[in-house]
């Protein structure tokens, strides 16, 4: 599963994208957008602390209950304020 990172999410993770292994033995793979938030929040607590973090699945805004699978392209889109 590929996760693309924008704005401060890119700074927090330190890379423009992340790959989440889908066959991690024994590890629970996130099945929904909400589970993905929790999963990423464990590795990157600063992501979890963001008041608003939009998540898109295959270029569509997704609610937390939306199911995801290994061939989906996910994007983490935090708000940006500069002008």
């Amino acid at each position: 599963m590929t996760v693309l990172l924008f704005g401060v999410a890119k700074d927090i993770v330190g890379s423009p994208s992340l790959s989440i292994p889908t066959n991690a033995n024994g590890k629970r793979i996130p099945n929904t957008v909400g589970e993905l938030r929790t999963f990423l929040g464990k590795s990157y607590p600063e992501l979890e602390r963001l008041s608003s973090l939009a998540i898109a699945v295959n270029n569509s805004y997704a609610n937390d209950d939306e199911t995801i699978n290994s061939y989906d392209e996910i994007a983490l889109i935090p708000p940006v304020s500069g002008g």
Partner: protein
Amino acid sequence: MERYIRQTGLRSFGEEGQVKLASGRVLIVGLGGLGIPVAQYLNAMGVGTLGLVDNDRIALHNLQRQVLYSEEDVGQSKTEVAARKLKAQNGNTQLEIFATYLDQNNALEIIAPFDLIIDATDNFGTRYLINDACVILGKPFVYGAIQGFEGQVAVFNYQGGPTYRCVFPHLPGNHEIPNCNENGILGVLPGIIGTLQALEAVKVLTGTGQVLSGELLIYEGETQTTRKIKLVHRPENQQIQHLQGNYAIPVCDTIPTIDAPDFLKHSETAALQIIDVRNPEEFADFHLKQAKNLPLSGLRDRLAQIRWDEPAYFICQSGVRSRLAVQQIQEIHPEADIYHVAGGMHAIQPLTEIS
């Protein structure tokens, strides 16, 4: 209209488009990196009335991206200088100057007489204020925002479409997202994003093309990638009746801050390095179990006692001294991963067990 012949000759725009532009009333909030290209292009193309809102003065470090201003303008008011230059560019435009920042007391009154609002601000507080005021007044607005090499553009609240709150429901805390010029913007980026905003404004005013509503455009300059995210419309966000009493902090705050409840939650899951900067007497009275006491008065001489390879959380009684501590340390160790706990022990005490 010889002057506009290059655009009136476009079949999809025509004389009709020009007439619509000429009767258009557009309010540009913010005359910085984004607002300037919007103002210059809409003014050049013949938009009838342009409202300009800003209360800032031109600074030398604005010039790398705010290309309407010159070296001789440094120190002068942005609205005054912009109005003078836009007048020289196109004498037919009616310019309305608001030499003020938009706030919850003036927003509805300033926005009401305009057809379309341009969000060209540089802080979250004003972005949420513009969203809420536009929803209350039923006005569409063109959103643009930038950070580093990246930008976002969308037309919100357009013909019942999604609003800013449908994408980002909550105003971010001050410590979450880089919020100021200090965090860096490549000079050309606001030119690109502001120009995209101007294009959307022309489309909304004239009905030409397809308005970027219901979608968020993300522009990534490092790789020249654009991506459009389909948005979800939440009708409840259209129900706003009143502005909030406060839209927080348009002020730049570069002190990394963590709220007491977040800090506690975090300290339960990890062994944090906590530095208590109160006096030894206050510390002896009560303190957090993991805390180390390094009073603010002698802090500079005891920095060797802090482990710089991990985050450090500074705490005091009310949050004033810990803030100062982080500020002082930032000057000496700009790369340090340090936070001040907002509200200090006053905020922590009711929430936890004190040793």
